[in-house]
């Protein structure tokens, strides 16, 4: 449904373009948020601070066990935190590809990469339901609190399957429902974006 995509895109545009409406409160800085979901201070120190918007719900790099030389695709890469962290682990011979549908996030991530001369990370405009990547091209797919936003999760996972090499793996952090949300939450568009 295009409306869901539009709503999600607008929500994430707001985070970048209007800090007064940002969901980062005074007491919960991006670093505090990231530490609370599994990033260490040592990890965060390895990458440009401006790439960390504190928007994840976990740390997919832990289970991903990235190795030097690997190709990794990040679905919904945002400002690039997980891609830049992946870039550190995969080294110069590896390649990290971030995919995001929000042009402003893409611009920010690309600016960060350029400013910091990070050459093994690239960012592509696209939807996670239609990944801008060839078949069998990636060793690993990661994602952080993004796939729950899609209204076509089967399609997303089929796309991940398509782009992974045989033997490739996925490591995804995401929100799961433990009991049905009350109607007031289900019908509230503000409760969709995470």
């Amino acid at each position, binding site marked *: 449904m295009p409306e869901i995509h539009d709503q999600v895109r607008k929500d994430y545009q707001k985070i970048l373009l209007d800090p007064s409406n940002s969901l980062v409160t005074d007491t919960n800085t991006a670093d505090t948020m990231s530490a609370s979901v599994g990033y260490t201070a040592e990890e965060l120190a390895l990458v440009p601070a401006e790439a960390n918007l504190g928007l994840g719900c976990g740390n997919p790099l832990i289970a991903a066990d990235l190795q030097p030389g690997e190709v990794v695709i990040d679905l919904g890469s945002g400002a690039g935190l997980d891609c830049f962290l992946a870039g550190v682990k995969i080294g110069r011979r590896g390649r990290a590809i971030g995919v995001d549908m929000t042009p402003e996030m893409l611009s920010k991530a690309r600016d960060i990469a350029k400013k910091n001369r990070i050459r093994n990370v690239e960012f592509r405009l696209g939807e996670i339901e239609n990944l801008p990547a060839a078949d069998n091209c990636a060793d690993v797919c990661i994602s952080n609190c993004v796939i729950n936003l899609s209204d076509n999760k089967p399609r997303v996972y089929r796309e991940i399957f398509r782009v992974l090499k045989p033997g*490739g793996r996925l490591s995804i952090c995401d929100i*799961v429902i433990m009991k049905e949300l009350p109607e007031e939450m*289900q019908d509230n568009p503000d409760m*969709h974006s995470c």
Partner: protein
Amino acid sequence: MSGASSVEELENIIRRAGFVDVSVKEKPVSKEYEEKWGRSLSVGQYIMSSTITARKPE
């Protein structure tokens, strides 16, 4: 988060896509996360954070 799936739904989706060794491990969302995204609606009783791993067969 209102578009999130249950663990069982997610496992089924991932297996149907062709993956093997599917694992979904859930844990409570952090207090900071609930405060930031929950909009004062105590969402922690409805959702959890999960780490999902799986492998494409050779």
